[in-house]
């Protein structure tokens, strides 16, 4: 009896503590003594040719489906194709001035009478406005060499503005830590149009003659100036249209 007890393994002893002797015995024989020992436990089940063919076919259809789905270009592809670069002949400030005038008209239309009063409503509308063609000036920046850059926005990407300066330089100004200032005159500027009469004499017509006379004697025409905090503005112009902006206290300011 004693020798039998000594021969009992430790697993059997522990099992007798938890279960009834018959149960313990059964568990010991089935799960411990007759435990199956896998020779190659993690190798996958051997596939036959049929399964292999089926898998190859599935992979092919999935790849084809994926290739057919339209996908946007990756950043590297974009840079390589140079789709969004402005060609050297196009980097002229004069070319973008008509765009700027269009933009001024767009902003005046967007703001309406709020261009005179400013305030929350005007700010909300401006937040969702598009700034391509706006004339910006960098007014404050953590990187001091950017201060003073002035020009027309030709590209408004997620993290930067691409600006063309009057000297025909294209500058990429990151939005981080930078404050931009834009100015929109409330009235369209006085325009002079030349009309050629049939006998070839050109005549200048001045529109808004009364406005011109007024502006000679009074201050420059009223304009609305606003500043954009680039830190809070790091969204693509398309994404900004539906975004609600909340005022955040910036640690850097």
């Amino acid at each position: 009896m004693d020798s039998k007890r000594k021969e009992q393994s430790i697993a059997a002893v522990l099992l007798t503590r938890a279960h009834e002797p018959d149960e313990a015995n059964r568990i010991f024989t089935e799960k411990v003594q007759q435990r199956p020992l896998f020779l190659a436990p993690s190798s996958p089940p051997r596939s036959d040719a049929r399964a292999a063919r089926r898998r190859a076919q599935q992979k092919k259809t999935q790849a084809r489906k994926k290739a057919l789905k339209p996908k946007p270009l990756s950043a590297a592809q974009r840079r390589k194709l140079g789709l969004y670069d402005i060609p050297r002949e196009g980097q002229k400030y004069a070319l973008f001035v008509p765009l700027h005038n269009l933009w001024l008209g767009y902003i005046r239309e967007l703001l309406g009478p709020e261009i005179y009063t400013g305030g929350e409503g005007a700010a909300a509308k401006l937040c969702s406005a598009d700034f391509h063609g706006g004339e910006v000036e960098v007014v404050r920046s953590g990187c001091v060499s950017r201060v003073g850059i002035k020009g027309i926005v030709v590209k408004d990407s997620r993290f930067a503005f691409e600006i063309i300066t009057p000297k025909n330089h294209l500058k990429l100004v990151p939005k981080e830590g930078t404050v931009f200032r834009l100015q929109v005159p409330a009235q369209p500027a006085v325009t002079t149009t030349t009309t050629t009469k049939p006998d070839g004499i050109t005549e200048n017509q001045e529109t808004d003659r009364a406005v011109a006379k007024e502006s000679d004697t009074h201050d420059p025409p009223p304009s609305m100036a606003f500043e954009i905090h680039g830190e809070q503005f790091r969204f693509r112009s398309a994404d900004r249209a539906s975004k609600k902006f909340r005022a955040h206290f910036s640690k850097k300011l």
Partner: protein
Amino acid sequence: MLPFSAPAVYQASKCFVTYGVMGHLDPKQPPSKSKPWTTLASQDFIHRADLIIPQQAYEAVQDVLIKDKPAPQFKRVFMSLADILADNFLEEYIKKRNIMMLSEGRRGIDNVFALRQGTLTMFLDKEAYERAGLVGKPHGVKGKRGLKPRWVVEFDLTASSMFPGKKGFDRLVYASKNALSTPLTWLFCSISDDTPMPDPLDRHHPTTLSTTPNVSQGINALTPTLTPSVDSIGSGGEAREEFESFCTELYEWLSLVRLGSPRIQPGDQIDPYLCRYHVPGEENQQSQQLLCKINWQGFLAPSWARQTLIDIITALPSKTWFSFSTTTFSKGMAGDNAECTFLRPQDSSPVEYILWEVKGHE
């Protein structure tokens, strides 16, 4: 001395004491290379200067310092930085002549501008610096900079690149028009003698002020011994400590005389609960003397201080002791300033001197 960089942590004001011997003073060639003179020149804008002499020496200096010497003039003017960079002012005053200017404000708190020896130094806070767009260096103790660092920007306006039309100068003008455009009160002092004929400063209506010396005579004071015992300083140890305590107490006494304190008067009875000051030295070493104090207060140049010291040394008889101190404008938030006190001891060789130099943190 090894050149040490600016301290990274805040350091309290320090006082450096020098006991030395002056070289021979040649009135035609004012000295500038040796110790008391370099200390005087290293101060930037002097606010106050005091001279303490025994009463009997007053007649000797009266003519030289008060009657014959022209009182230094300075002007107070209200203008903006853009006015200083305007063509005529820049050319007439900054490029051709030597001037110094200081704007209102305290350095750790407001935006302060200082112009000295052709260098414009601007102490700006973070917003002004970022709006100005000029390259500068961080200013202030490293530990205190944190999220809102302060900056100092320097420009050498006498350089050949500082003309309108050049890029660097145009950036400075842009900054002066946009970010630093508020007009401030400035103190202006011209170190060169001549003034330009159509004075560019007249447009801003300056107020001219002159620093006439203030004389207080017949100060009855209990004077300690004014001669240091320097025989055994070199051997170090106790003699050195004794000299240190002698200098400290003597400096304290001189400061009390400058302040016009009643504690130095003989027979001063004050409750020891309020003040425990005693004139240094034993009873037999103290003497009762009549002193005379001459005080200049204004916007003074270090070259004026140097010339005044030379005049004093040449005017006074060689055995008379005197003390000349200059104090600068305060720099930091705490308002402490740099100071330099020069004492020629009594009963010593006329070329010996003790120099106390108090250097602030900034």
